[in-house]
């Protein structure tokens, strides 16, 4: 008998691979590598030795800060050596993020959001140059970093490093901790581009033993001021809707813990807190605790004493000194600067907030909403994590319980709360594009791009209220799908969806309080003027901050 000898299983292949990669880098770079510090002109060589074909690679392209120098370097590697990469990154923000697919360096993609690259992404996916695994929410993708999409190599961005490789991210910590942890603890390698190399860091955000290499980039990494809204651009209709939100939702539910989406609609609410909400006696009763990026438009409410705490996903350009001066409100390190964390803040937004309110592009007759339009694969970002009922939640708050009492779930169900998920839209967007549609573009996009699921941002089954200038529809109080449809038509104004409403049913829904119009809330539309805004310009925000807020140049008109 010649029984085959069973080879002993090797249990540390990934660790061995890590050593192999490090040796290759060391041999190729020679004196251009000092400890962990790589010279900027050696970075393409570094990536060629570090990355192996088929690797899962995370480029830190996230909502705000970008590892742009490393992203550009990756587009310049020798395709014969580095190819078929599987990119696992939260945001495709830069052209380079797609250049790697066009050049054949990468072929597979799992991501969350593609914003400005959404049109080109759709074209590349259509031409077969890249295959999309799935479009995730942030938390989902981060979760998969620890399950089945762990990066082999991560290219991240930080403000500064010391010679040991410790990293200081500053306020824009964002995705870096979750990426670095997933990569480093599964024998992967983290490469950090930094704006400066220093002897001593203000604080350590990522410890050096998680970091393989550090390179000083020739220019500071790019940061997008994504959450700055100029109050000058807020319309009277947005002021009206903000009044309706405060009086019709925030006040009756007593919403103390919340997240605001991005946009002028919610910026208007932020700017009405010190004026309109104050006049209603709501200070200390609503909007006390936030999961929110540091929106400049929240400065007047913070100064007025509405806001007790804010934890942030990322930072916002120009808000650094203001946050440093308000450590009771923001999460700041011993060095004084803010620390954000997208993974933790998403968790907070999902489980610890009683309300999400945000805008969208299209809402259908079931209340499903989507920002997907034909020819653009834009993805989700974090909204579905905020804008969904947290079914695992087990702690009670008055707002959560009040919404839960309204939700019809049958007589035998135990008491349970409900997250308030509010969609806030004007019935028509610019160029008279209706916000209400019979069928979302998402369905056609799913068919044309062969997706398993239509890219719906917020499911109708999670939405509790839809707010337009025509009124608030409380979907919790609807008894069946027919009522939901008429409640939505009833606030869809002069859109085709709205004009096709059954007037008798809609009046009945209004009698029952399912639909509440401005006048039902005691709001006179003529009172909705821009005079109610606590700041009417960026300059007003600077003034409200006592000069601490330093807006980026493009927002300065003085």
């Amino acid at each position, binding site marked *: 008998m010649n029984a085959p000898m069973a080879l002993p299983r090797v249990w540390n292949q990934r660790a061995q691979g890590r050593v192999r990669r490090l040796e290759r880098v060391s041999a190729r770079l020679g004196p251009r590598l000092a400890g962990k510090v790589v010279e900027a002109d050696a970075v393409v060589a570094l990536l060629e030795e570090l990355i192996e074909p088929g690797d899962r690679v995370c480029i830190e392209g996230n909502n705000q800060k970008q590892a742009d120098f490393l992203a550009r370097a990756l587009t310049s590697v020798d395709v014969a050596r580095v190819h078929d990469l599987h990119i696992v990154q939260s945001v495709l923000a830069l052209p380079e993020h797609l250049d790697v697919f066009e050049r054949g360096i990468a072929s597979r993609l799992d991501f969350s959001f593609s914003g400005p690259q959404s049109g080109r992404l759709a074209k590349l996916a259509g031409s077969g140059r890249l295959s999309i695994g799935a479009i995730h929410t942030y938390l989902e993708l981060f979760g998969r970093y620890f399950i089945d999409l762990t990066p082999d190599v991560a290219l991240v961005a930080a403000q500064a490093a010391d010679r040991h490789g410790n990293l200081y991210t500053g306020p824009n910590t964002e995705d870096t901790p979750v990426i670095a942890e997933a990569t480093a603890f599964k024998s992967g390698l983290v490469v950090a581009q930094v704006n400066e190399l220093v002897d001593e860091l203000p604080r350590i955000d990522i410890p050096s033993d998680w970091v393989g290499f550090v390179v000083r980039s020739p220019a500071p990494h790019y940061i997008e001021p994504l959450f700055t809204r100029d109050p000058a651009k807020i319309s*009277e*209709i947005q002021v009206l809707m903000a009044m309706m939100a405060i009086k019709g939702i925030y006040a009756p539910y007593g919403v103390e813990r919340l997240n605001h989406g991005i946009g002028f609609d919610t910026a208007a609410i932020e700017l009405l807190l010190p004026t309109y909400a104050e006049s209603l006696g709501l200070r200390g009763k609503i909007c006390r605790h936030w999961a929110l990026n540091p929106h400049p438009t929240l400065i007047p409410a913070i100064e007025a004493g509405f806001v007790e705490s804010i934890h942030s996903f990322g930072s916002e350009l120009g808000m650094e000194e203001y946050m440093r001066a308000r450590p009771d409100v923001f999460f700041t390190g011993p060095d004084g600067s803010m620390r954000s964390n997208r993974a933790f803040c998403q968790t907070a937004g999902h489980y610890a907030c009683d309300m999400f309110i945000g805008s969208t592009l299209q809402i259908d007759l079931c209340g499903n909403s989507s920002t997907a339009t034909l020819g653009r694969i834009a993805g989700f970002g974090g909204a579905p994590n905020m804008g969904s009922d947290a079914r695992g939640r087990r702690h009670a708050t008055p707002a959560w319980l009040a919404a839960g009492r309204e939700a019809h779930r049958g007589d035998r169900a135990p008491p349970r709360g409900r997250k308030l998920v509010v969609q806030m839209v004007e*019935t028509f967007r610019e160029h008279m594009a209706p916000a209400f549609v019979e069928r979302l573009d998402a369905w056609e996009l799913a068919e044309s791009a062969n997706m398993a699921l239509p890219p719906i941002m917020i499911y109708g089954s999670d939405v509790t209220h839809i707010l337009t200038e025509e009124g608030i529809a409380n979907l919790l109080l609807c008894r069946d799908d027919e009522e939901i449809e008429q409640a939505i038509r009833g606030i869809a*104004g*002069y859109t085709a969806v709205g004009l096709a409403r059954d007037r008798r049913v809609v009046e009945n829904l209004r009698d029952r309080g399912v639909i509440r119009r401005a006048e039902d809330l005691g709001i006179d539309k*003529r009172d909705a003027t821009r005079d109610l805004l606590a700041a009417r310009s960026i300059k007003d925000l600077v003034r409200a901050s006592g000069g601490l807020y330093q807006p980026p140049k493009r927002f300065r008109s003085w």
Partner: protein
Amino acid sequence: MEHLEYRFDGGRPATAGSAARIVGVVASGNLEVLIEPVPGDPACSIAIDTAAKGFGEIWQAVMADFFARHRLAGIRVSINDAGATPAIVALRLDQAIEEFTRKR
């Protein structure tokens, strides 16, 4: 450009002595509304010049709701529209009526 006209009957006569009033501005996404008294006219007549074409059905609905809110006769409403949404149109109309009927 599109020109639209509507007439609504059955309103009560506007207060005698009301003077012409104008509100709003002709800027992108906004509009200008002029209301003038036409003593003796049993109707509310409306003339619209709009930059956007093909929204006649929506204008008709917005104007019918406007008339139903105020039910005024003996007035002529002239609208110079630069692509305002129905919400802005309705708001400007109500502001114009308030100005027009305010006692002085």
